């Protein structure tokens, strides 16, 4: 056991701490002078400014959407509440860069909306919805990411000791004051962890700006710097900025929340009745949610339509609907190969992540291994540090070694997928372990079972459904992972789906349509995964832990 724990520590150090350390060491080699000239470069300055603005605006807007929705779904009763609660998660099924392809069809100068509008008498010129592309990126990110904040808020609201709210009103506080002084502060920890994910996601989203061909953002500049990684220090500088910022934010969040971990402070005893919304307000709420969902799912509809359209030029809707492009995937060598590749990569990733999560969870909660703290910290790192930084670190560390991603990227790719999901999977398994009374295992040992037998017959069966949920989600997310897929793989025969979609979307003829078909397949896989997971656990909480 101890040998296994040591081996695991070495493995984690080697593949998480090691590459990061190497990256920082390399960056430290960039002279101050060079660094200064990079930062003062007008384009770089613009990119930093815009990236931060975008991330801030996205987080803020997603919060503004998620807050009232989560409040309604948690505290008010209205017809169809449970169904809406689930439907609100639908936008998650397509990563923003896939949705972006659909969005272009719907909102472009000669896209569906403009063509429909131009049929009206008073609009003669198409409206430029997408502008330089930044607006489009912003909208897509908000529509894709609000469910993450929504989920976090929902579980915060539901874990709240409701008598704390009632105590406030019994002392004479009106609803608004109770919201501001009691509800908000108590749910801040949950909100922050959601908002942090959204902020970092938006800040380091590589796929969406690539599809919109928008160059002045940090992740794009990092991506482009990879081609001249040995001569151009800009990539390193930007990576360092992003890492310091995200680590700093993460640390700050942990610090503030350290005093604010209220879970378990008081037992949730008080049951409460959801107040039924009056008919008018209920109709209004339902209409609002429906409109939001329709808008959120427009890009998805765009992807679907574009994948089904055999011919679609300058008409609001496709002229001919067929499965032509799905058949093309089978014929088109690189599309077919990418799908097979990704299925393989994701399967390997899911298995690897499952084994890692189970081992780490076991060591953290059931052993007294001395380096538990270290393992815990390393495991959380992929959450604090964006995927793009990891991909970059892998690239710089392993280029020229036996694991060189230019020649054999598979191992690193699978590793980076798995490590990225690791914090979430470990957290879920760890939580499962903690809910499992130790006495169940002690009873087994007491009856003479060995440690291994106890694990196999008692512990593992009780963790199984949680673990399975984690594995399924890991599989789905790996299918559509962007940053590592784009950065680590350069040979076409090894392309994962995300990279194939990116390459196809940039081609003129049938590329975008085939890309859409691949996107739809990815969406279906994600949807199925979310469905199975919600069936497995019966609770939203396990999804929210795993996101």
């Amino acid at each position, binding site marked *: 056991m101890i040998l296994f724990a040591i081996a695991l520590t070495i493995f984690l150090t080697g593949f998480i701490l090691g590459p990061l350390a190497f990256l920082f060491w390399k960056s430290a080699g960039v002279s101050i002078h060079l660094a200064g000239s990079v930062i003062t470069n007008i384009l770089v300055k613009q990119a930093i400014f815009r990236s931060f603005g975008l991330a801030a605006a996205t987080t803020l807007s997603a919060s503004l959407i998620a807050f009232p929705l989560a409040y309604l779904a948690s505290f008010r009763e209205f017809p169809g509440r449970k169904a809406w609660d689930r439907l609100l998660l639908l936008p998650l099924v397509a990563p923003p860069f896939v949705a972006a392809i659909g969005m272009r069809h719907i909102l472009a100068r000669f896209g569906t909306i403009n063509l429909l509008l131009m049929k009206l008498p008073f609009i003669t010129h198409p409206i430029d919805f997408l502008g330089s592309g930044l607006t489009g990126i912003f909208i897509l990110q908000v529509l894709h990411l609000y469910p993450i904040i929504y989920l976090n808020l929902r579980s915060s609201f539901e874990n709240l000791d409701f008598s704390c709210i009632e105590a*406030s*009103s019994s*002392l004479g506080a009106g609803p608004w004051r109770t919201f501001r002084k009691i509800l908000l502060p108590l749910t801040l920890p949950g909100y922050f962890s959601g908002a942090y994910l959204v902020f970092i996601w938006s800040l380091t989203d590589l796929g969406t700006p690539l599809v919109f061909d928008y160059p002045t953002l940090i992740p794009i500049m990092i991506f482009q710097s990879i081609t001249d990684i040995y001569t151009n220090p800009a990539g390193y500088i930007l990576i360092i900025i992003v890492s310091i910022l995200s680590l700093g934010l993460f640390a700050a969040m942990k610090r503030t929340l350290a005093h*604010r971990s*209220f879970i378990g402070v008081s037992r949730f*005893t008080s049951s409460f009745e959801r107040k039924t919304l009056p008919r008018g307000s209920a109709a209004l709420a339902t209409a609002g949610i429906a409109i939001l969902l329709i808008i959120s799912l427009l890009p998805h509809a765009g992807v679907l339509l574009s994948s089904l359209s055999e011919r679609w030029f300058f008409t609001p809707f496709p002229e001919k609907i067929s499965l032509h492009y799905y058949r093309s995937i089978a014929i088109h060598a690189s599309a077919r190969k990418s799908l097979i590749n990704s299925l393989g990569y994701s399967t390997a990733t899911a298995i690897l992540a499952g084994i890692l999560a189970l081992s780490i969870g076991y060591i953290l909660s059931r052993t007294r291994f001395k380096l538990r703290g270290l393992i815990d910290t390393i495991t959380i790192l992929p959450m604090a540090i964006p995927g793009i930084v990891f991909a970059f670190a892998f690239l710089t560390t392993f280029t020229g070694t036996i694991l060189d991603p230019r020649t054999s990227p598979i191992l690193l790719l699978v590793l980076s997928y798995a490590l990225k999901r690791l914090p979430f999977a470990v957290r879920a398994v760890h939580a499962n372990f903690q809910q499992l009374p130790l006495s169940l295992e002690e009873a087994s040992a007491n009856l003479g079972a060995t440690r291994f037998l106890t694990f196999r017959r008692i512990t593992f069966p009780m963790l199984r459904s949680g673990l399975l949920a984690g594995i399924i989600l890991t599989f789905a997310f790996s299918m559509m992972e962007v940053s590592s897929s784009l950065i680590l793989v350069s040979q076409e025969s090894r392309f994962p789906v995300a990279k194939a979609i990116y390459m196809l979307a940039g081609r003129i003829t049938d590329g975008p349509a085939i890309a859409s078909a691949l996107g739809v397949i990815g969406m279906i896989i994600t949807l199925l995964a979310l469905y199975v997971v919600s069936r497995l656990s019966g609770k939203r909480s396990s999804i929210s832990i795993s996101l």
Partner: protein
Amino acid sequence: MDRKPFLSAQGISKSFGNTKVLTKVDFSIPQGNLFALLGGSGSGKTTILRILAGFTSPNTGTIHLEDRDITLLPPHARSMAMVFQNFALWPHMTVFENIAYGLHLKKHSSADIKKKVMETLALVRLTETASHYPQTLSGGQQQRVALARALAVEPRVLLMDEPLSNLDPGLREGIRREIRELQQTLGITTIYVTHDRKEAISLADTVALLDTGAIVETGTPFSLYQTPKTITAARFFGELNEISGTVSAQNKPYTEINSSLGNFSVTTYKDLSKGEKVIIGFRPDSLEPTGTKNIITGTIKAIEYQGESLRLSLSCGDLSLIASLPGNVLSSYKQGERIQMGIKTENILLFQETL
């Protein structure tokens, strides 16, 4: 008790879905009274409290505070502060902030608030914890902070939902006394929900016993314990030996009862007709080995020494009775022994048999 009702409820009914929780509950409470709602789980006691607080609205019925109908008022407009079962102290605020919260709402000046908070803290002897966070305090201290938070706003009515049930048993008695003392000093009208009959008896001016959503009996602790009018109350307030019989004669103040264990003479007078089926009930400590009236004969089935008392399980005919004798007397009872005991006439309760 002739004072005008301060707080009253009329015809309160409540269902959750198809489950009826309360059926036509009525009560009225004079000002300054401590009114205990006593009942087991599922009796509806907490629902009544939540209806009074305004967290739940009744399906039918009204609530009046003095002469004002407050049935439809939102919780924050009722001036009824609640002490919650789990205390519900806000973990993100210090003890001081927790208590000051309600005062801020009343737009006091900050000097006033400070003074009032410290006064209230002194009342519950927690002045030194003002700057602490509630989760760092012991259960008993948290309980007192919760009480202070409710008292600070000087509510018209104090609502307490099983305030002692989350405390260690050793702490309960002390805090119970403190609550009673504070309540009497401040003269604050209080509704106290509990499932513990000892708590209700020792605290309350008036106790209402609830069972399956209806009030069974209301009265002073003494009357409910010593002279309950219903057999449900008699059973709830302590162990009860029961013997069925029929009325054979009534000569005021005596009622003569005929039963399978012999004839009994009872002073609890009720207007009954001859031949009516009744149940007589008495507490285990009403049986006396030296008694000369109302004699029963039985075989000792089991002997249990409990320190302060000696309990004998008797088998009398087809009935089982319990006798409780003082534990400080050395006795020589043996299992299987046949003995006689008398029941003190004035301690026998009489109930009409209702099926």
